[in-house]
């Protein structure tokens, strides 16, 4: 009895180590460090302070959209409409600014519009029982169409410098761009919500099995709608930041961002069928993709190759953990047999 206890203690410690190493986040850190080494080898400019600023600034709107999208994907749903909501927010903000509405009013209004768009998605999915993939494909077209109707071909670009400084400027005295600060702040808040509160627990529960969650008293419909509204509002925020960074509001803003946002979330270890995924994973994936894109650009690798690399990364991010899991299962099976054999000889 006592020997068994002492024997199991270091074993458990060892397990924890290997489990940490086998975690997806650990792999991402390794990959990230590897990419940084690679980037440094490819270009002498890679490890400069200015480059850090460029590197993160280019991806922040996508990164910000990816945070609530992580929760949606853990829930077992998807929101493809985020890029159009960002474009819609940009168009609406530009339209109001051109009509003389101050930004202090315009920005909150745009965020509310974002939440309302999310409400439409959420209601159709949660109350209507419709698949989120198709619903948000529909609103992907709808929100973009509304943006085009609102602003048409115009671009609005006479924003005040205080506003455009948010998107393009750095925190004074540092090389950290403001959007990166917003991203980290949001990541912190959503990370706490997801990993430390009942909202997070319920989100995972619905993602694993919505039926079971409902029977154990989780308000499935309400949470689903709430998260879609959050996604809409934050996508609108990303649209505001994009408007600020481009110092211009355009109806086509943000086009093509959804695919990168989804890639980032899945690369961060979230399961497309729901039930698993973490905010730290998404944050690490954002940095990995940002570093990869920047390193490839500095090495003058053409965008075609970058596009292929992103696609491969997306598929591998699903294939590798699956193989790792199968390998682990196989190992466990072997070990289990060995244990049984040991028990049998002991008996």
């Amino acid at each position, binding site marked *: 009895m006592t020997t068994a206890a002492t024997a199991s203690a270091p074993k458990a410690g060892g397990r924890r180590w290997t489990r940490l190493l086998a975690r997806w986040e650990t792999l991402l850190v390794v990959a990230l460090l590897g990419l940084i080494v690679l980037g440094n080898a490819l270009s002498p400019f890679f490890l400069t302070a200015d480059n850090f600023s460029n590197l993160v600034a280019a991806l922040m709107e996508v990164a910000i959209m990816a945070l609530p999208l992580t929760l949606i994907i853990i829930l077992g749903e998807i929101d493809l409409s985020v890029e159009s909501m960002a474009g819609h927010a940009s168009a609406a903000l530009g339209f109001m600014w051109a009509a003389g509405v101050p930004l202090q009013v315009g920005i909150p209004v745009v965020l509310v519009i974002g939440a309302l768009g999310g409400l439409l998605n959420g209601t159709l999915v949660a109350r209507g029982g419709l698949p989120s993939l*198709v619903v948000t494909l529909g609103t992907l077209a*709808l929100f*973009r169409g509304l943006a*085009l109707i609102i602003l048409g071909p115009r671009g609005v670009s006479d924003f005040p410098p205080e506003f455009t400084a948010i998107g393009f400027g750095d925190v004074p005295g540092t090389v950290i761009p403001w959007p990166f600060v917003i991203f980290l702040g949001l990541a912190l808040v959503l990370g706490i919500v997801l990993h430390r509160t009942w909202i997070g627990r319920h989100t995972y529960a619905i993602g694993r099995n919505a039926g079971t969650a409902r029977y154990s008293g989780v308000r499935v419909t309400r949470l689903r709608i709430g998260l879609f509204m959050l996604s809409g509002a934050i996508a609108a925020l990303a649209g505001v930041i994009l408007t600020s960074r481009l110092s211009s509001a355009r109806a086509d803003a943000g086009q093509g961002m959804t695919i990168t946002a989804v890639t980032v979330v899945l690369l961060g270890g979230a399961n497309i069928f729901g039930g698993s995924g973490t905010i730290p994973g998404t944050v690490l994936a954002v940095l990995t993709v940002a570093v990869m894109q920047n390193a490839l650009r500095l090495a003058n690798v053409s965008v*075609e190759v970058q596009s292929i690399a992103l*696609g491969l990364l997306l598929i591998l991010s699903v294939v590798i953990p699956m193989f790792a899991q199968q390998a682990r299962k196989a190992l466990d099976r072997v070990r289990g047999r060995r244990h049984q054999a040991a028990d049998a000889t002991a008996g």
Partner: protein
Amino acid sequence: MAEAVAASRLAGARWLMAIGRQRELTLLAIMFVGGALVSMMAPQFLSVENFSQVATLASITAVVAVGEAIVIITRGIDLSVEAIIGLVAYSVARTLELQALDPVGAIAMGLAIGLILGMINGFIIAVLKVPAIVATLGTLSIFRGFDYVIAGPDQVPLAGLPPGFTDISRADVLGIPVFVLLTVAVVVVGSLFLRSTRFGRQVYAVGSNPEAAAILGIPSRLVIFVAYSLCGVLAGLAGIMWVMQFGTINGTAATGATLAIIAAVVVGGVNTLGGSGTLAGAAIGALFLGFIANALILVGLSQFWLQAIYGLVILIAIAGDQLIRRGVQRANTRSGSR
């Protein structure tokens, strides 16, 4: 009294059921009424010439929509079709320009490329078991990336194609454009394949209930693999039609086309949760969207409305389907309880 209300409700439900069953007819009816309204505002709408132009253009979408419908019936989705169209279109056009193959050979090559790309999707989804949306989102980037790599800024001009190749898109038999006949052929062959062969019925079985299909011993993975391969071939065919229609091809051909293709499938009444829908529905859905775009131009409504209207049509189609399905269920339970 209560009896009468229940009876009228039941009648309503039957009516709903009838609509649900006859999606193709419903769409044609909407097109007929809508067309009448549009032709009052723009008489040119009703010309034979206009009809054949719209139908020819919609045929390209319709052919891919048929492939996409097969995939969606198995409970999958293929977001990479636009990249397959683009890659095939450029490869075929470039091969013809270099005169490396004669037109027949180039067409065969285009179909083969489509098949291979579809098989790659099928392999990743059925064998590596990567979820369809992730797999095809990935191959969307990869296939398009390859297209850009081989094409670069190069553009194959119309003059580079063999004389007469692009005439096929304008040719007609007894007044019916060749592209439309081709689409009809694809729909008829595909529908016969799905309805009358064992394999075809397995496609529906896999989509409507994967667990049951597994218990029944249906080779689901093979069925899924074949579905994506077929979708690839049809996207390849659309790529060839793209060359015939537009003549001038560069690496960006068909960018963004997936939305309209999936919209056509959804509007055509294919259930996005798998297991039900017809190929004719998907093709008519494509025609429906084509006529909307045409009508907008002719009525003089700004094209900025097109995106929003596509979005609304998708949402109305799926929400309508759901209402009908619920109505039918309610009617069934009510008549069952009697």
